[in-house]
């Protein structure tokens, strides 16, 4: 299979990545999709091509206060066939949950921890937007620690 074909398969795998529950400073899915689109020679969409990072006041101040280092832009170097294949096979193992299954932790010992049994349930329901914390429940967590 050609490197372009494998890159396209990587992009398909990246598409299967679960949606991020929170907005982070950078998105793995987005950054890697752009990277492998370049490898596959696929044109970026307008959304992908647009810069995402919003400059904060601190960023502006840093530029004013400190002389910015001259950024050396490394030219795009395509990965070799072996390298692309290794990236694909590693991503496939990650997407298939290989290590979670291999190092299976039974009885929910860590996921329903004795010291704070609802910790992960509350965390995930908050992240999924199912059950938002109220001011009272947040205050209770701060006071009692769980």
């Amino acid at each position, binding site marked *: 299979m050609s490197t372009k074909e494998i890159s396209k398969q990587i992009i398909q795998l990246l598409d299967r990545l679960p949606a991020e529950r929170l907005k982070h400073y950078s998105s793995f899915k987005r950054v890697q999709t752009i990277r492998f689109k370049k490898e596959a020679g696929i044109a970026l969409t307008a959304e992908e091509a647009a810069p995402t990072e919003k400059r904060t006041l601190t960023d502006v101040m840093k530029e004013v206060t400190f002389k910015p280092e001259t950024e050396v832009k490394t030219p795009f170097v395509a990965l070799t066939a072996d390298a692309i294949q290794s990236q694909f096979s590693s991503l496939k193992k990650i997407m298939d949950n290989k290590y979670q299954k*291999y190092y299976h932790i039974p009885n929910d010992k860590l996921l329903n921890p004795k010291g704070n049994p609802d910790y992960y349930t509350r965390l995930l329901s908050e992240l999924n937007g199912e059950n938002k914390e109220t001011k009272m429940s947040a205050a209770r967590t701060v006071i009692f620690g769980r």
Partner: protein
Amino acid sequence: MIYLNYSTHYYVTDIAKHSPIVTAPGSNEKNPIPKHKRPLLSDSPYESNETKLSGWKESFGEMFIGLFRLDMDRVRAGPVAASIYYGQAKQQGLQYPNEELSETASFYYSTLGLPRTFAQWFQITALHYWILTVRMRAMPYKYGHNYQQKFVDRFFKDMELRLAEEMNISSGRIIGNYMKDFYHQTRGLVLAYDEGFATNDATLATALWRNLFNGREDVDIVHLEAMVSYVRMQLYVLSKMSDREFGFGKFTFVAPNEIVKPLSQAEEAKLKEFARSQFEPVSGKVLPSMRSSLSLDE
């Protein structure tokens, strides 16, 4: 030491080195040479390996603990979480300019090619802090919370001292700003890793990419896979340890060039039996300082 069977399954270093992409070792050109190198834990002689209490001091201590019925599980949180476990977590990525790297540090900086900086050391230590936190949370709340508190107190105190003495920062204001930044990063990474742990490998991998790999566009996904297997392996070992063993500081991180094979039921039973023989001798005689209410079964 952990008494688990190591066998030829997934060596983390082998996964990482398997990649055909050549990784340049992380550089540390901009790191200052420390004026004064801090001891691993603290300046206190009681935390050095050479110090041993004299016989009468030990006997007096045992008598004191027995007489006042001290809750040793609470007392032990400091020496175990803040000394043994913090010492281990700190050493994983500890490096100094112009000095040879330890075996684990070599994995992070040479094999994975992470930059040899203070911020990167923080990320490596914080990852190990989170791994331990997951297990501490599974202890009874009264004790687990205390272990977490002791660890994090030592972590931030040590960072503050390292910034002043090893990174040669003399301004308290600048150190304070760094500390606030590290504090926010810790809160963020604990949330991200917890989410990854509770969901799937893909979410854990993205959390590792954002934090440990600094969101690098050209990340080698083989390295990311190696780190996912590393984290899952450590958590597996921790899940097999009883509260008593963990609470007494018997856990050591599995090195990247070591391997843990999932245990059979017979092996698990054997390990439990061994732990029981270590903590509850047949004679039933246990020193007051070794008493514990932590479970040997869970």
